[in-house]
């Protein structure tokens, strides 16, 4: 049987050359993201913005979106976002947060149930009051910040300073570009998005760690090899693994995007994008970054226990 090979054996590809494109590209995208974040911002879901989200499905299988919009706007609960999705007459309604504190939100649900209850099935109703949404914003922010700090600590223990700096830049790059994805696509940003970002942080780090593990191993073997050549070698050595893992992960996520249902689709799309970004940044951002940071800056190269045993073998 002829087996599939996604990446040729003994490749000698000059990955470091990509930095001439990847650095400016990533810089431009990052700046654009920052600009758009301050002008338009994220499309916050009710988790963070508060308010009421309803998903209703027409019992007849045919939803009259125009009429729903007109009726819902007549409620006097502010701007309603009405959207049709899925196949069988499913409509989502999003009401803004009502002034008058926690208790005021319940009126929205009651009114909608009374009005649409006969013709539509209420599949999902979520109400988040101002206090809870404030707390969710807080814990979401803490989560992302904490993960970056945890990553920093991990890298500090695990790697030499140069490698640690390069991979934290890569991770931050991935966070920024993921947020950029939310800004540009107007994807709803909610607690699940925070989960996606944290998973992407994990994956991003994973990708750089695999490459840098190899870089460190090669550094010890080829003591005089120039940084650029050494990094190219590391990536070429690990490339077949990188491609395989990216492929299996992407395939799983593709299954989720295609069959996972509307509720999980958003998460899967972001993750799928994240896998691409993380793979790109490990190869085209973090690694070439080392050429500038200086690969052999510190003379005291930390050698962890496991690798020393392996090297002595």
């Amino acid at each position, binding site marked *: 049987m002829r*087996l*599939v090979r996604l990446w040729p054996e003994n490749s000698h590809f000059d990955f470091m050359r990509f930095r001439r494109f990847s650095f400016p590209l990533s810089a431009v995208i990052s700046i654009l993201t920052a600009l758009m974040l301050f002008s338009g911002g994220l499309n916050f879901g009710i988790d963070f913005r508060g308010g009421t989200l309803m*998903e209703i*499905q027409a019992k007849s299988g045919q939803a009259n979106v125009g009429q729903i919009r007109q009726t819902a706007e007549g409620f006097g609960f502010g701007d309603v976002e009405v959207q049709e999705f899925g196949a069988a007459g499913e409509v989502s309604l999003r009401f803004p947060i009502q002034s008058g*504190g*926690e*208790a005021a*939100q*319940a009126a929205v*649900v*009651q009114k909608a*149930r009374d009005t649409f209850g006969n013709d539509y099935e209420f*599949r*999902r109703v*979520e*109400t*988040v*009051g101002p*206090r*809870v949404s404030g707390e969710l914003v807080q814990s979401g922010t803490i*989560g992302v910040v*904490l*993960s970056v700090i*945890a*990553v920093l600590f*991990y890298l500090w223990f*695990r790697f030499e300073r140069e490698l640690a700096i390069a991979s934290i830049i890569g991770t931050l790059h991935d966070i920024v570009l993921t947020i950029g994805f939310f800004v540009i696509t107007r994807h709803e940003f909610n*607690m*699940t998005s*925070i*989960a996606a970002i*944290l*998973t992407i942080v*994990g994956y991003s780090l*994973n990708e750089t*760690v*695999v490459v840098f*593990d190899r870089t460190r191993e090669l550094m010890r073997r080829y003591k005089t090899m120039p940084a650029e050549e050494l990094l190219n070698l590391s990536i070429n050595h690990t490339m077949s*693994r990188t491609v*395989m*893992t990216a492929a*299996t*992960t*992407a395939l*799983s*996520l*593709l*299954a*989720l995007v*295609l*069959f*996972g*249902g509307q*509720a*999980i689709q958003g*998460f*899967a799309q972001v*993750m799928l994008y994240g896998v691409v970004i993380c793979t790109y940044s490990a190869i085209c951002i973090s690694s070439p970054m080392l050429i500038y940071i200086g690969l052999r800056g510190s003379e005291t190269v930390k050698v*962890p226990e*496991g690798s020393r045993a392996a090297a002595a073998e």
Partner: protein
Amino acid sequence: MLRFSRSKIIATVAIIVIGLLLAVPSAMNREQRQAYLNAIPSWVPHWLVPSRAIVLGLDLQGGSHVLLEVDAQDLLRGQVTILRDDVRRILRDTRVSSQNGIQTVPRGVQIRVPDAADRDRLMPRLRELSQPIGNAMLGQAGGNAVEINTTPDGVITLTYTEAGINERIRRAVDQSIEVVRRRIDFGGTTEPSIQRQGADRILVQVPGLQDPQQLKTLLGETGNLEFRLLAQPGATDVDMLPMEDQGGQRVPVERRVIAEGGDLTDAQPAFDSQSHQPIVNFRFNIRGAQRFGQATTENLGRQLAIVLDNRVISAPTIQSPITGGSGQISGSFTVEQVNNLAVLLRSGALPAKLTIVEERTVGPGLGRDSIQAGKTATYVAGIFVIIFMFATYGLFGLFANIALLVHVGLIFGLMSVLEATLTLPGIAGIVLTIGTAVDSNVLIYERIREEFKAGRSMVSAIQAGFDRAFATIVDSNSTMAIAAVILFFLGSGPVRGFAVVFILGILTTVLTAVTLTRMMIALWYHWMRPKALPF
């Protein structure tokens, strides 16, 4: 050398078999599980039989999640009223008069007693109000609940301390949980879960509940019932309370309380035998019966005021003394209203208002669809990855695929034992780990291939592949674990479900992708004595 000791093989297989057996109940539906449990002979000790199934989150089985918060303002208002009553009582007992009555200040009350001798009589009694917080028997030092400040010109201020208020909130949450438990009585088919969350919140989860409106109505009422008398013209000590029958028009009600909700032993919805109107029948305890009997005897012909949460819900005329200890509340009620009222009265009053700060309800239809979609996505992802791994690594890919299936089985097994909740993001987590679990195998296989190409013998290449890839596998899994653990501690509900799956997935992947695969390769090598790598 590629050698696996017999004991190591047995241990690995045993752990995996036990883990997979634990997942068995989760693979069955309710009836199948019952049949299976019945089929186990009785001499088998029940702790040996895996019986726990994974708990499905509300987003998968449908139901309502309502987060309630004890209204601290309301609670404090109530506490200040109690404090004011206490101070009034003490002033009366000691025959001291305050110059400008009892003033309400933030968190407390203030009186003005310029006379030093009066103050000396008053102060010891007032100090009794400032009890220490916590259980003195257990020696908990926590300061006082009420703080007393005196100025030289005789202004005495009693205020609740921060710690005192927090202690009251804590107690109010405990009491409220009990009351909420009694109020949620939906026939007992689904188990509602009621938990304290944080300092001042209660999380109520009712599986299968589609419209939490009735639940919200029930929990929205404090349920504070008082029997008083409608005031006669010219009476002074009265409250003006809205009367429900007359469209909220305010009527004067005597402050004196004859009997209250706490004096009731039972309350049941019923129909009046003559008017066929829905009513609530109630029964007093001895104390309540005595007081009610006396009051109705003394006030024949006057109107009673039945006050619920400061609203007069009914004002019947006392036609004859009610000494039997039972009575009825009638009014223009609907059947649903009397049902709710009876539940409210039976469950007792909440110590403070509960506010709904978050509500998430998923209909059963959506839950079913989500499970179906999740299953499909899991199967498709599994098939994609299995085909892909086999096409790339041949026989070794097959080994990785077996490890992958075991890995997913073990996640379910562990979740069953831990009684973890499977949510929709949790399913996404499983699908994602299908993709990432094979990463370890990929790392190992690619390394083996490299070592083999570098001129090692096959055995030595396999050996080196496993050894050298291991450090990287530990690294790559710990990086994922960092994110998952943070997510676990920050997320709630569905998102936490994702973190749980991810953490368990990281744990099992080491066992399956490293140990199990290595064992399979070792056995294959010893049986087949192959000359070349199969990929």
